[in-house]
């Protein structure tokens, strides 16, 4: 993909798939990111990239935070029927994307935030909560409840215990959740294409529009460059947080 993205269209037509480009030609990258500069019909990724960032950052933050809170309550502040709440949340993990499209579209319409980044943030946050809750709940189950008791005797309240005692030891599971949620939300196409169009679309939708709706010659070099641009943020998150990923996934299994 990288090789092809660096070639000119001339080279692509004449050479084979694996032949090297004649030089570092970044034109296709520039086109993919910033467009050609003429008006109508010119689709390029920059605005949609920022749309995606604006969507993914708050959505990951809120879903992770709410998941952590719910996990904390479900393990350390047990209440009557908490098992049922957990069961329903677990059930939420198995609901396919398609099943919630219609009800969600209605909800967004009523709230007046359809076709907006805010709407997408809401959709992804809500859809992410079952997963994040499951992660955090399983992590907090292995944290001794005596910690919470000790903190209560020391005079810490509900939120203080969460922020001062539990959150500081949750780094591994937070990383896991962020990677998971980021990948899910960044790579999502269905919600993006259903609940937004035009200006408010996230990058995956734009990528699709760019690659599939070209009316003229297929510009493989630009397509490749776009695809890579759309994939880079996920890669960065993986590299930065990857080493915690395995640690976090397995840390719940064995008690320290």
């Amino acid at each position: 993909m990288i090789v092809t993205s660096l070639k000119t269209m001339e080279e692509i037509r004449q050479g084979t798939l694996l032949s090297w480009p004649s030089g570092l030609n970044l034109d296709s990258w520039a086109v993919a990111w910033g467009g050609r500069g003429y008006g109508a019909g010119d689709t390029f990724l920059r605005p949609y990239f920022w749309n995606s960032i604006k969507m993914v950052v708050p959505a990951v933050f809120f879903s992770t935070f709410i998941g952590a809170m719910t996990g904390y309550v479900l393990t350390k502040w047990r209440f009557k029927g908490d098992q049922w709440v957990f069961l329903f949340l677990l059930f939420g993990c198995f609901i396919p994307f398609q099943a919630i499209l219609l009800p969600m579209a209605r909800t967004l319409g009523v709230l007046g935030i359809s076709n907006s980044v805010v709407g997408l943030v809401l959709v992804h946050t809500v859809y992410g909560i079952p997963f994040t809750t499951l992660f955090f709940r399983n992590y907090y189950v292995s944290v001794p409840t005596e910690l919470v008791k000790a903190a209560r005797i020391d005079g810490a309240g509900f939120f203080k215990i969460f922020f001062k005692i539990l959150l500081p030891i949750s780094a591994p599971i937070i990383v896991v959740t962020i990677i998971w949620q980021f990948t899910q939300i960044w790579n999502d196409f269905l919600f993006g294409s259903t609940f937004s169009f035009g200006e408010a679309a996230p990058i995956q939708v734009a990528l699709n529009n760019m690659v599939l709706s070209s009316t003229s010659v297929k510009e493989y070099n630009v397509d490749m460059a776009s695809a890579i641009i759309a994939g880079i943020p996920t890669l960065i998150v993986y590299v930065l947080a990857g080493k915690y990923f395995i640690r976090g996934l397995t840390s719940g299994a064995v008690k320290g």
Partner: protein
Amino acid sequence: MKTLKIEELSKNFGSTEVLRKIKLEIDEGNFLVLLGPSGCGKSTLLNIIAGLETINEGNVFIDDYNVSKVEPKDRNIAMVFQSYALYPSMNVRENMIFGLKQAKTSKEKIEEQLEKVSKFLQVDQLLERKPSQLSGGQRQRVAIGRALVREPRIFLFDEPLSNLDAKLRVEMRREIKKLHQQLKTTVVYVTHDQTEAMSLGTRIAIMNHGVIQQNDTPENIYNKPSNMFVADFIGSPSMNLIKGSLKESSGEILFTASGSNVEIPIKDYEFKDKSNLNNKEIYFGIRPEHIYFKKSNEIDFEINLRANLSEYIGHEQIITFDYANQEILAKFPSTIKIELAKETKLFFDVTQISLFDAKTDERI
């Protein structure tokens, strides 16, 4: 004024009754041990005293003040947990002062308390370390320190030694004992280890099935168990309980084991109720260490029993005898030679016996 008073306390988890009509009083400076098998409700009782569990019925008073609905932090108590429960993200200093900070204590007071306690427990060199960098014994000390800095009226210990290895456990046991001797604070201590209970407690409350079976001094618990459960629970090996009946003849009370015709005279026994003793079905309780190989008192009762099994455990040996088809265990120094499958002359120390009603299991 009682430092701690518990009145008619009951607790259920759903339909399971965990504590039933618990009554308990502790005087200032006492060291009360709650002892019992797992699932007897002792930890629940401790959590209720701490305010970590709600009460279904009854009341808890600390210094005559009803704290039944008071938050844990306002009860003037401190607790040491089995897993130590040190906050993993904080260093020793932050762990110890967390409670004081929550209570908005002044900085000077916090520093003063921290210095005093950390010196006292010899953890002043460890203040900047994280709990994960401490050994088991050090963690234990820090956990105690975190409780000490609050200067509580009552210390609550929830099996604090069961996570330590055998050697360290004995050491820490002595330290807790010293600590109590120096501070003279009231302590409630939960354990399932009878040695721990005996050596630490000034009072022991033995619990079973959510009921306090006996609340007494360690000496009385050992010598005068109030029912068969206590008799059986305390002591290792536990007390021999021989089924049989009593007979009253010409002012003398005699015990006969069922299936035997040997009559053991009961002398100097403090009966709760001397009436209706004739033909009463009872259990005759005698501890393995109160069966002697040599006569040591004039009153000792001589009996010939057949040795069936010998267990050698170093400084002593435990021999199983047959007494009218009931097993009797006796403990002797390992220097004594006892031949198996032979009649051996033994002496029962009848001043040390306990008698229980076979119907009610209560001491008579």
